């Protein structure tokens, strides 16, 4: 596991995880080997009439992430992520990005086999 993407509305590790995947404001992509993080804005997907989840999945894949942590992932986004072999940890709402990544590293976030929304 090298790169992990966490949905977040704001660009720092101490900001809250954005519970929405498809209409997330952006995501922090963290390289778990170098511990470098960069923020990718997802604003354009937020304003799509339909298919925001699919568009966001494409953005996450382009960023090279292999794992996504978010609150709620809809069925279409889930399918899109699965196509690219990206694993999903969901129900990570009500915590900061840093907390979500720490939990993930401790093995406390199971990978989902189906969407929770």
């Amino acid at each position: 596991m090298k790169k992990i993407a966490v949905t977040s509305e704001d660009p720092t590790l101490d900001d809250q995880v954005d519970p929405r995947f498809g209409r997330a404001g952006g995501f922090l992509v963290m390289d778990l080997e170098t511990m470098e993080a960069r923020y990718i804005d997802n604003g354009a997907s937020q304003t799509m009439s339909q298919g925001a989840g699919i568009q966001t999945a494409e953005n996450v894949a382009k960023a090279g992430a292999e794992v996504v942590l978010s609150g709620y992932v809809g069925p279409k986004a889930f399918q899109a992520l699965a196509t690219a072999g990206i694993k999903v940890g969901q129900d990570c709402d009500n915590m900061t990005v840093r907390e979500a990544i720490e939990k993930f590293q401790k093995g406390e976030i199971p990978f989902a086999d189906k969407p929770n929304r």
Partner: protein
Amino acid sequence: MREILIISGKGGTGKTSLTAAFSHLADNKIICDLDVDAPDLHLLLQPCHEQEVAFYAGNEARINQDGCTGCGTCAQMCRYNAIRQENDRFTVDPIRCEGCKVCVSFCPEQTIEFPEKHCGTWYVSTTRFGTMVHAQLFPGEENSGRLVALLKNEAKKLARENNIDLILSDGAPGIGCPVISSLSGANFAVLVTEPTPSGRHDLERVASLCDHFRIRSGVIINKADLNPDEAAMIEQYCRERNYPLLARLPHDPVITEAMVQERAVTELGETEIGREIRQAWTRIEELAG
């Protein structure tokens, strides 16, 4: 953050009057009118617009006549009968245009423009019950569900900024796109129905939709005394499907009276229906966690 959504598959069941009453009873919430096609909640809450934003959605084709050679490719390709032909002049009928871009892509002269469509306005307002987020689509515009998603986002943003943990939303009628979009991310749906054959039929359809999206729901039977047998059948259905029955409300012209006075029914002093609505709200708060 909790989001409680009031919906009814069928219109006219009293959903909006109930949403207004719940807005009066709930502490510390953001109110949201997601029925952007024909919103009514503002008639009871008299929102004062603090912020007005134009809403653009999708695009529509427009044929630039200067470059058009009248070849008719656009008319052949359009699946929505949106291209009108008079002699050899081709124009787009905006009412029928789906914004699919096929004519734009296949026009040999590349003379079809594809501007964004201005479809309506959305507002953040203050009301006597707190902040309200609402919108109005222009008549005849597509209700794509995106405006619904946008309002929900705004409501969440405002809730977070102000440490508010409840969003109370009045949903759209039906079971199509606007409703599906309203349900997205909701914690609890209050299904308002009436004891008529159509009421029961539509309740079953909208309840199936909630189940489809795994959203917990409870039922309010409004005007229950109009047809006690039909009301009993709805109760039976709720028991079988494990939907909590939140209230049976009487058919009471005081609902219309409140509307005429532009108030929530719970603001009109002690009434039987007001008491029942208060009890229902207590149940909803317990169930929505």
